[in-house]
């Protein structure tokens, strides 16, 4: 029988990381996600799985420790919250430029600036459009429950190493702090040095006599070579867009109206859908699980069927831009959001949807 635990979302991330064979975690404390490192330090995984856990001197150092570990083919991660993730953006760009797999967890809080410690989804643009410099993408997973916090760690590592694209779990203070029942993933052994050499022939593992020295770098001064590297990366992005889109549909089949929401906004919107259905209004909800690659195709399919769409976000309207691109003017798309750490209640969403009917 599978063991059910009662955990905070942040704790679930930490325990799942140990179980899925992560080699290293490097982080810096910041609310509302400090339980991730606290849980790891309390677990002492270096005594069991051999996982390294280190508190760095800053988020800048953390992300470059991740860069260092990933350079050697190790499964490494960091976690932070919005202001800390902003500090990491140079490193994220470097990781993408060097095509290094890794996991960055962002448990979002309200901004901009120091902002608040309450939940928000205002880093959608930063996460999906590239918060650092250059043409790059992250594989962005948006958990809507503590169970998904646990499940997405392994998924994020798997997708990241498959495509050599850094992955991000984009959560928020509500999912990070709330407690739910969760079944943790089974234990998976860490990769051996031999497995890493076999699976990551590009990694800086020490140069044997029979190969050239491996160089992990995002630098290329010859513009024609630099463009080629970029083109190859963009081709990989197109494959990810074609094959790795994930989303969840709730009462969408006969819907006249479609709510689109991710993460904690989706949890609240689900209640709103139930209320509206009780009133006889045919509403469905589409929940993007991958924010990049974005589920554009299915949204454009619904644009042929529904009367209008409403995005519910804990921000001023960010994901709505991707929804509008997918809908391409076929039906009206409106946004309902709260900012600055305020979480809407289902009634507000019910009212917002009725207003656009």
């Amino acid at each position: 029988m599978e063991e059910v635990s009662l955990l905070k979302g942040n704790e679930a991330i930490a325990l799942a990381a140990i179980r899925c064979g992560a080699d290293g975690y490097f982080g810096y404390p910041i609310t509302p996600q400090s339980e991730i490192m606290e849980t790891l330090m309390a677990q002492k995984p270096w005594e069991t799985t051999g996982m390294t856990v280190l508190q760095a001197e800053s988020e800048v150092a953390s992300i470059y420790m991740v860069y260092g570990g990933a350079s050697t083919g190790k499964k490494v991660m960091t976690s932070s919250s919005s202001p800390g993730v902003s500090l990491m953006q140079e490193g994220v760009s470097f990781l993408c430029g060097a095509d290094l797999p890794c996991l960055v967890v962002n448990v979002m809080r309200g901004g901009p600036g120091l902002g608040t410690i309450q939940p928000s989804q205002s880093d959608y643009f930063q996460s999906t459009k590239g918060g650092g410099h250059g043409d790059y993408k992250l594989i962005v997973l948006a958990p809507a429950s503590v169970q998904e916090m646990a499940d997405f760690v392994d998924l994020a590592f798997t997708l990241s190493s498959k495509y050599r694209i850094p992955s991000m779990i984009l959560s928020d203070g509500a999912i990070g702090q709330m407690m739910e029942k969760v079944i943790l993933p089974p234990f998976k052994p860490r990769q051996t040095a031999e497995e890493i050499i076999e699976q990551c022939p590009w990694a800086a593992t020490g140069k044997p006599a029979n190969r050239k020295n491996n160089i992990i770098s995002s630098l290329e001064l010859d513009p024609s070579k630099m463009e080629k590297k970029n083109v190859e990366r963009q081709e990989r992005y197109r494959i990810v867009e074609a094959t790795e889109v994930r989303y969840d549909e709730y009462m969408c089949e006969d819907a006249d109206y479609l709510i689109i929401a991710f993460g904690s906004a989706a949890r609240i919107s689900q209640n709103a859908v139930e209320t509206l259905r009780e009133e006889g209004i045919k509403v469905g909800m589409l929940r993007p699980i991958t924010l990049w690659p974005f589920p554009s195709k299915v949204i454009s399919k619904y644009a042929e069927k529904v009367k209008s769409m409403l995005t519910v976000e804990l921000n001023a309207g960010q994901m709505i831009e991707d929804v509008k691109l997918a809908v391409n003017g076929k039906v009206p798309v409106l946004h309902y959001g709260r900012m600055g750490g305020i979480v809407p209640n289902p009634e507000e969403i019910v009212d917002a949807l009725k207003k656009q009917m």
Partner: protein
Amino acid sequence: MSNPIINPENLVYEKSSVLLDNTMHYCPGCSHGTVHRIVAEVIEEMNMQDKTIGCAPVGCAVFIYNYINVDFAECAHGRAPALATAIKRLNPDHLVFTYQGDGDLAAIGTGETIHACNRGENIAIIFINNGIYGMTGGQMAPTTLVGMKSSTCPYGRDVQLNGYPLNITPLLAQLEGTCYVTRQSVHTANNVKKTKKAIRKAFENSMAGKGTSVVEVVSSCNSGWKMSPVKANAWMEENMFKAYPLGDLKDK
């Protein structure tokens, strides 16, 4: 017929097998080439080529991986000690070193440098101090001497405007985590020998788990200083060594 000159008994110098054949891009008179050769020789002598991971800087030595034939991770400006920290902790049987200039180590990367040293990471830091930004074209560095001219202090470093040169190596020697901190140069054959000994010791310390070793090499940048190589060395002896005297600062 064998070449009458290249006979084993005539051989006084051989290029290290850990050096690649690529022509170095460094200016004639630059210290980087000499320090690269020393690093390669020490790796070869320690038989560590297959166990070495280098952390390349941003600066003139950004292309170090084109010359020293070991695996490298190219770091963002100043972040080499953070990379090296994780690389060594995740690969404790490897020799991990950073190679950094003064702007990299003592300006943008001061935080990473101090904290890696303070944690006593089992890495070796090779610090090239030539008091100027070479690659970007001769701007003021944290270690630029008072009165010394650069493209961003064209009338000479003025303490009122620019503050004082940062003498960071003695600072690192104070930290509990460092085991060996030394300052060397490569402007004479004798000094090259001393620097080689220092780098060997730093690498051996890392493998013995003794803590962080820092080898500062006070270097010349004749292009940045706008001097001939010979004059740059003389200027370095006269001025740089006064501010940055050679010798061991810590050996525990």
